């Protein structure tokens, strides 16, 4: 576990053509500092696994406009029209998954599960080409696990071992993503000493985390602000 002093250092190991999970539900719980740093890094051909690909010209949306993203895997690309446009122009591949399937597949990836059967999506356009199986009289479709080279997550507090706790609904996809990538970096508001987080309260035990860095961009009522 490494404590990075800048986001730039934190994402030094990221490379072109990697698969990167990015936490957040819209801007809420998104690692805004790390995303911003990624827009400044010379990489391309990325596969991004994230609920959405930012908003128009914001967050992951910048990466899309920079054509650094080869493929997006998520549940809701609607909120950024640029994503749909890039897709129509054939510049961007998209894989649309029900939100619960996205969350569950990431969890499966982190838990060493190869794939699982869900009844969400059965008989819809999103099940086309997916293996069907009947279990106890119910129809299910197969969904493979998702894993990544890197996960960029947003937490509230970390201790110096790398244990993480999250803040309110900013928790969302972050805890699963922290389990499902080879290299996990968490952007946090506060770094505390081991023992300051209650052992019963820790959501992401440190064995999942490779690096932490303090957030330099935070979400406020009035939008994203730079701090420190």
């Amino acid at each position, binding site marked *: 576990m490494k404590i990075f002093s800048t986001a730039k250092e934190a994402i030094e190991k990221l490379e072109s053509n990697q698969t990167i999970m990015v936490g957040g539900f819209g801007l809420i719980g998104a690692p805004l500092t790390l995303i911003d740093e990624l827009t400044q890094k010379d990489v391309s051909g990325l596969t991004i696994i994230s609920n959405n690909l930012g908003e128009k010209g914001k967050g992951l949306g910048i990466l899309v406009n920079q054509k650094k993203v080869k493929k997006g895997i998520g549940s809701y*690309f609607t909120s950024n029209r640029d994503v749909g446009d890039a897709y129509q122009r054939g510049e961007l591949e*998209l894989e649309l998954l029900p939100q*619960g399937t996205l969350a569950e597949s990431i969890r499966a990836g982190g838990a060493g599960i190869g794939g699982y059967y869900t009844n*969400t999506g059965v*008989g*819809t356009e*999103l099940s086309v080409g997916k293996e069907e199986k009947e279990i106890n009289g119910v129809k299910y479709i197969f969904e493979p696990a998702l894993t990544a080279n890197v996960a960029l997550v947003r937490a509230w507090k970390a201790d110096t071992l790398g244990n993480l706790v999250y803040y*309110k609904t900013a928790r*969302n996809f972050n805890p699963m993503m922290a389990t499902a990538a080879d290299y996990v970096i968490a952007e946090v508001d506060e770094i505390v000493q081991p023992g300051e987080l209650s052992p019963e309260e820790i959501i992401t035990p440190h064995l999942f985390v490779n690096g932490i860095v303090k957030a330099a961009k935070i979400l406020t009522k009035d939008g994203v602000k730079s701090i420190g």
Partner: protein
Amino acid sequence: MQNLIAKRAAQELKSGSVVNLGIGIPTLVANHIADGDIFFHTENGLLGVTDVNEADIDPNIVNAGKLPVGEAIGASYFNSAESFAMIRGQHVDVAILGVLQVDAKGLIANWAVPGKNIMGVGGAMDLLTGAKKIIVTMSHTSKDDTSKILKECTYPITSTRSVNLIITELAVFEVRNGELYCIEIMPNSSIEEIREKTKAPFKEDWHNNGGQAR
């Protein structure tokens, strides 16, 4: 009109229920709950959603529509996998959703429009599969005055499961064994208007609501 629909939907919610509210009209349902014993679930990870005053807004506490909400006493937070495990594992009693279309069997379309750049499904399919009861709240017709209740959906369906109840500004329909039953005429509506603006066959059954209809 929206509040009329939301108010009617609120009457369906039994004390102690766990209810997931979709975006749009469904969000308004919470304003019409008299009793505090209804628990609102939002799929981004909170059980115990309440209203929030402008002054108390926390940008990190939002609902599925990414709008700021409050935290009820006894609320709890959880991650998205756990949240959808609740939905998909049938632990949510009622989901109230908006739709683009609903058909004669009670199947709905609410996530994609062919030829349009809408590429989001969010939690719609999960809720359709997992919630014990599905209530649709919607305007009876779309902006161009065409019926949203059709013989068959022309947009991609959200699930092969029928919804349970459909509430519009004109009528309330129940889905029974894959057939629509008009069970209520809403205030300022008439059976003639309902017949005119509903492009799916439906039966009429008023026995449960006295003289309210016809």
